[in-house]
C-alpha cells in the first residue's frame, strides 16, 4: 500500500509530502524525505516491553505493574519533575500538563535547553514573523544565523527558502540571495552566496554594529567587529535594506553561545528596525518536529511556554529556577518522568548526575541513555508513524500527523491517561 502526503515526524520542518510504502504492518520504503527522516521512518531497535529495575537490573513486566509503580513513585514525591514532550503529539502533551497539575509537579520541555533564550527574548521584544509559505512565495533575501540547517533541517532550503519557485519568486534560486553567519564554514555556508565568519561569542557585537549602521551611526562602528570588516557590515546592511522581503532564521549558534537571550533579542530588534525600510521577518529554527507544539499547548493551558511549576497549585514560571537543568543542578527534584526525550544524552553530564540518584521513569519508543538510568521503562508507540495526532511546524502552523501502521505498544497519550487515572485513585480524587 502506498500512502501519500505523509508528515515526517523528525524535525521542525514537518515536511508534508512524504510517500511511504507499507507491506503487511511494515514500512518498506520512504520517498521524498531527507536522510534523517528516512532513517526515523524506516525504524530502529525498540524497547520491547515495560520494565522495572530490581537489584540494579531492568526486568520485564506488564504495563499494568509499570503504570502502578509510576503512579506510586509520583504520588510519593514532594517535588516531581516532568520533562521532554517535543517528540510526541499535542494530545499527549495536553495529558501531561493535566498530570503535572494533579501532582503539583514541574513540567518542562526540550525548549528549555534549545530555544529558551528565544522565548525570553520574544517576551521582551516580540517576534515579527510569518509562515514558511510566505517565505517561499516572497523572500528574496534569506539569512541563516548560527543555524546549520543543511544538517539539522536538510530540506529547509529546497522546500521553503533558497530553491523553490513561489508566486513572487518565480526565478527560484537565481532571484534569491542567501547569507550565512556562523563561527565555522558549515555545509549550509558552502551553498550560500555569502558566508560571514564571526568569532565565537561575538554575535551580539556584530548584531549591534549592523543596527548602528542601519540607524545611520556608521561613524561609531570600529574597523572590524567580531572578526567582520566594517565595509562588509555596511554592504550587508545595504543588501538588507534593498531586499524586497528578507527573513532571518536563527539557531543554536545564537541561543547556546555567550549572550544567549541577549543575542536573540538583538537579532529580533535588528529585524524590527529593518521593517522601517522594507519587509523583514525572523524565525527560530525549531529542532524536534513538535517542540513548537508543546510550547503552544503549554502556553494556552498554563500561560507559559516552558519551565512551569505547579507546586503552588497554580502555574509559576521562573526560568533559572523552574527550568530542568537548574532544578537538576540544585538536586531539587525527588523523582522525574521523562517523555519522548533523552536528557541523559543531551544534558551536561554534571546535570545528569542527579537524574541517576532519584526514581526515574521513562516513556519512549527507543532504548537510549536515559533507559540506562531509568527505574521504570514504559515503551510507547511512535507518534506520526503508529499514532495520529497534532503537531506544530516551526512557523506555528498546526498539521495532522498520520498513522501509517498498527502500533505494537500503547501511545504516550494512553500511558499518561492511565498514570493520571491511577494517581487520582491513590489520592482518592
Amino acid at each position, binding site marked *: 500500500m502506498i500512502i501519500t502526503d505523509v508528515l515526517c515526524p523528525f524535525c521542525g520542518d514537518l515536511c508534508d509530502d512524504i510517500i511511504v510504502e507499507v507491506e503487511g504492518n511494515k514500512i518498506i520504503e520512504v520517498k521524498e524525505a531527507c536522510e534523517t527522516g528516512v532513517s526515523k521512518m524506516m525504524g530502529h531497535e525498540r524497547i520491547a516491553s515495560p520494565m522495572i529495575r530490581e537489584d540494579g537490573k531492568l526486568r520485564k513486566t506488564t504495563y499494568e505493574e509499570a503504570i502502578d509503580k509510576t503512579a506510586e513513585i509520583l504520588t510519593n514525591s514532594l517535588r516531581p519533575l516532568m520533562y521532554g514532550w517535543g517528540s510526541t503529539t499535542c494530545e499527549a502533551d495536553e495529558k501531561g500538563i493535566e498530570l503535572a497539575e494533579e501532582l503539583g509537579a514541574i513540567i518542562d520541555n526540550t525548549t528549555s535547553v534549545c530555544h529558551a533564550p528565544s522565548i525570553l527574548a520574544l517576551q521582551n521584544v516580540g517576534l515579527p514573523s510569518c509562515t514558511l509559505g510566505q517565505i517561499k512565495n516572497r523572500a528574496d533575501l534569506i539569512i541563516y544565523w548560527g543555524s546549520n540547517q543543511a544538517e539539522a533541517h536538510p530540506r529547509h532550503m529546497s522546500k521553503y527558502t533558497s530553491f523553490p519557485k513561489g508566486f513572487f519568486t518565480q526565478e527560484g534560486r537565481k532571484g534569491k540571495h542567501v547569507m550565512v553567519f556562523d563561527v565555522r564554514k558549515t555545509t549550509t555556508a558552502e551553498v550560500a552566496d555569502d558566508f560571514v565568519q564571526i568569532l565565537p561569542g561575538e554575535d551580539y557585537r556584530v548584531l549591534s554594529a549592523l543596527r548602528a549602521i542601519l540607524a545611520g551611526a556608521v561613524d561609531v562602528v570600529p574597523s572590524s567587529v567580531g572578526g567582520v570588516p566594517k565595509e562588509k557590515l555596511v554592504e550587508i546592511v545595504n543588501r538588507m535594506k534593498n531586499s524586497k522581503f528578507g527573513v532571518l532564521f536563527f539557531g543554536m549558534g545564537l541561543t547556546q553561545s555567550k549572550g544567549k537571550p541577549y543575542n536573540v533579542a538583538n537579532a529580533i530588534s535588528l529585524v524590527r528596525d529593518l521593517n522601517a525600510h522594507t519587509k523583514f521577518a525572523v524565525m527560530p529554527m525549531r529542532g524536534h518536529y513538535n517542540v513548537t507544539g508543546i510550547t503552544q499547548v503549554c502556553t494556552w493551558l498554563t500561560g507559559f511556554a516552558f519551565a512551569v511549576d505547579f507546586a503552588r497549585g497554580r502555574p509559576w514560571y521562573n526560568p533559572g529556577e523552574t*527550568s530542568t537543568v537548574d532544578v537538576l543542578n540544585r538536586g531539587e527534584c525527588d523523582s522525574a518522568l521523562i517523555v519522548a526525550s533523552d536528557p541523559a544524552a*543531551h544534558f551536561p553530564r554534571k546535570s545528569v548526575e542527579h537524574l541517576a540518584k532519584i526514581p526515574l521513569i521513562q516513556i519512549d519508543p527507543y532504548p537510549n541513555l536515559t533507559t540506562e538510568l531509568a527505574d521504570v521503562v514504559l515503551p510507547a508507540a511512535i507518534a506520526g508513524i503508529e499514532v495520529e495526532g497534532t503537531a506544530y511546524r516551526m512557523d506555528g502552523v498546526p498539521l495532522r500527523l498520520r498513522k501509517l501502521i498498527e502500533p505494537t505498544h500503547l501511545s504516550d497519550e494512553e500511558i499518561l491517561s492511565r498514570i493520571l487515572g491511577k494517581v487520582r485513585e491513590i489520592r482518592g480524587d
Partner: protein
Amino acid sequence: MKKIDVKLTSGRSIEQGIHIDNKMSSGYCDVAAVCELNEVDMSKLGIRDGANVMIKSKFGQVVVRVRTNNRNPPGIAFVPMGPWANAIMDPSTGGCGTPQFKGIEVEITLTFDSISPIKELVGFR
C-alpha cells in the same frame, strides 16, 4: 605531550541525526564520539585522522576520535551534540535554563586511551 587550547562548539551533524533514535548502536558512537579540527591544529598536535584525543574542560574529560575538517577555522573544535560533548559541558545556565553548549574553553591532547564507551558516560549510577 603536545597540547592545544581551543574553543569547543557542539551541534547537529546529519550522521548524528540519522542515529539519534539508535543511540545504543555502534553506529552512533562512530558518528558522535568524534572531534573535528582544522589541519593547522592537527599538525600542532602532530596527529592524523583516526587518532584518539583527550578533551578536557573545567567540568570533565572525554576521549573521542579526531578527524580533519578545514571548514572549522584554527582554534575551534567541533564535537556533535550528544553524550561525548556533554561530558565536558558547563552545566550552569545563567538563569535562562539553557547551558552554554558552544564556545567553551578546552584543552586537547593525543591519547592512547580508547574512546569513552557510551554507558561509562553515565556510569555514576
